[in-house]
């Protein structure tokens, strides 16, 4: 509405002046106003109203210094600006300005003396807040990126597609011992294991379509050791960065890969054990079948042996396939066969703590199962007056230490026909299998008042005292 009367120019207005006036009036981005030598507003265009928030009617005749911030006013900036304009013909600067409502904006301004210096000055101010903030934000973003890039454990880099690097974080230099100068371009590839270079380069194929670069390769540490790294890169957002560069990280996955390898070994071991166990089951089945007079005989015998095998496997699983405590093995078998005879005086179980190597546990378990089955059917555990003692001791005076276990049944009335068919499998197991696969010394006698069996199995030196890995 209001705009100001331009500086008096006489009654006639030349076309040029009119053009100037219209230009000033129609300018919406540029605040244009004139001030007296001491800073009082003498004209004030629409854009000045819009940008500063003061109407022409409020400000004309008053000091226009109110558009300076309080600090700048206190520092005498308005006068300094006028002095500079007088001295040099123009004072241009960028600074914070204050609006009527107290808010601030970043503006670039220019103050110049009017044609007649006594008339004062013309000032033009443009709101540059947006431009200023974008620049500021970029600087801040860049600073945040550097801070992140230099404080995380990963090695960070910037690269062009194809692998030419423009920057590497200090961690890269710390790890490889290569300076930034040595590393830029393709210099960094000197730290990649020669065998992994083809893969390192090939990973760029199709990376731009996928929007991701990915490779696992060995990178040489300053001390010469190669360590596996996982390297990923992604293009920088093109909207904020026109360099066409990608930013990437390299993460040390050496230990992780080691774990994976160990897992593969464990898996192979598990397969081996499983297949071996199946082969054992198969051999038990066919030998039980061979020694059974009928399928009715076969069923319970085979099932009993499978259960014994499964009990030993359970113990092995609990010990992580390490040594097994001999007493535990014996008690598990006796409890499986008995009515709680252990501890009632019918069965004596006695001996020091012995760590039985895992490799011997299965055959020992099966042997004890055969002895116990026999005792339950025909021996000490079948007859009220019968007694069973299982006693063992460590014999460390031999070249290789061993545990000698005696299974002794007493007060047993032996069946007149002898131990019968059962003798087949159990006897073969004790007299032949244990010596063959455990290097055990064994003897098995069917005495007048019960079975007597001695099994001496090698144990590791020191293995008798406690378990060890």
């Amino acid at each position, binding site marked *: 509405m209001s705009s100001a009367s331009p500086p008096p120019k006489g009654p006639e207005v030349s076309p040029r002046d009119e053009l100037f006036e219209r230009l000033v009036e129609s300018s919406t981005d540029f605040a244009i106003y004139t001030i007296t030598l001491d800073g009082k507003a003498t004209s004030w265009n629409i854009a000045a109203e819009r940008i500063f928030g003061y109407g022409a009617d409020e400000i004309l005749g008053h000091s226009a210094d109110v558009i300076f911030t309080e600090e700048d006013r206190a520092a005498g900036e308005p006068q300094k600006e006028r002095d500079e304009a007088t001295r040099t013909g123009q004072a241009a600067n960028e600074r914070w300005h204050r609006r009527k409502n107290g808010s601030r904006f970043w503006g670039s301004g220019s103050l110049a003396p009017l044609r007649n210096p006594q008339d004062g000055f013309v000032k033009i101010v443009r709101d540059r807040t947006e431009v200023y903030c974008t620049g500021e934000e970029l600087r801040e973003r860049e600073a945040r990126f550097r801070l992140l890039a230099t404080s995380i454990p990963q090695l960070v880099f910037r690269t062009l597609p194809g692998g030419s690097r423009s920057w590497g974080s200090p961690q890269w230099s710390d790890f490889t011992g290569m300076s930034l100068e040595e590393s830029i371009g393709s210099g960094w590839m000197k730290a990649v294991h020669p065998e992994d270079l083809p893969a390192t380069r090939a990973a760029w194929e199709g990376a731009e379509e996928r929007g991701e670069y990915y490779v696992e390769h060995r990178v040489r540490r300053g001390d010469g050791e190669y360590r596996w790294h996982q390297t990923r890169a992604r293009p920088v957002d093109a909207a904020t960065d026109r360099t066409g560069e990608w930013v990437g990280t390299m993460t040390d996955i050496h230990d992780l890969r080691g774990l994976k390898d160990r897992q593969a070994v464990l898996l*192979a071991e598990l397969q081996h054990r499983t*297949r*071996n166990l199946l*082969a054992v089951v198969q051999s038990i089945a066919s030998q039980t079948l061979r020694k059974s007079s009928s399928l009715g005989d076969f069923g319970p015998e085979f099932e009993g042996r499978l259960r014994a095998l499964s009990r030993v496997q359970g113990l092995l699983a609990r010990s992580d396939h390490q040594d097994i405590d001999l007493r535990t093995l014996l008690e598990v078998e006796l409890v499986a066969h008995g009515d709680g005879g252990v501890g009632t005086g019918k069965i004596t179980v006695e001996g020091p703590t012995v760590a039985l190597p895992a490799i011997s546990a299965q055959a020992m378990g099966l042997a004890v199962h055969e002895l116990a089955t026999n005792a339950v059917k025909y021996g000490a555990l079948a007859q009220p007056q019968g007694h069973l003692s299982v006693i063992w001791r460590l014999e460390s005076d031999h070249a290789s230490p061993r545990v000698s276990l005696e299974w002794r049944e007493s007060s047993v009335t032996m069946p007149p026909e002898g131990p019968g068919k059962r003798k087949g499998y159990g006897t073969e*197991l004790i007299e*032949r299998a244990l010596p*063959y*696969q455990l290097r055990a010394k064994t003897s098995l006698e069917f005495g007048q008042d019960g079975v007597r069996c001695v099994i001496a199995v090698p144990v590791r030196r020191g293995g008798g005292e406690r378990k060890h890995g």
Partner: protein
Amino acid sequence: MVEPATSAAPGSDAGGLRGRRLLVVEDEYMIAMELTRSLEELGAEVVGPAGSVEDALELVGRDGGRLDAAVLDINLRDERVYPVADALTARGVPFVFATGYDSMAIPSSYASAPRCEKPVDKLQLARLLARRWQG
């Protein structure tokens, strides 16, 4: 289904074991017995079985020249059978692995040897052996 093949006609794969001397290396007694019995049923003469590298090497040293082939378990208690494989190779005796291990777990220098997975199918084993003699 198995029986007709075991009583195979002369010249068939299974019949190919007749009169052959085979070394069996297997640490598990019951498996060793089972394998021995199967091979004997197919007409072979079994040397061993040996349950350790030491015992197997002794048999190879004593009998190596008269062996037609060997069946080797890879994992023998705490040791691997490879020294036995080397000794057999040095004497030109072919062998077959009978193992629970995957081929991936076998060192590359032995990976080309035929392999039977446990539990061993005796007819497959006989075919593998026959192929070795032909090769």
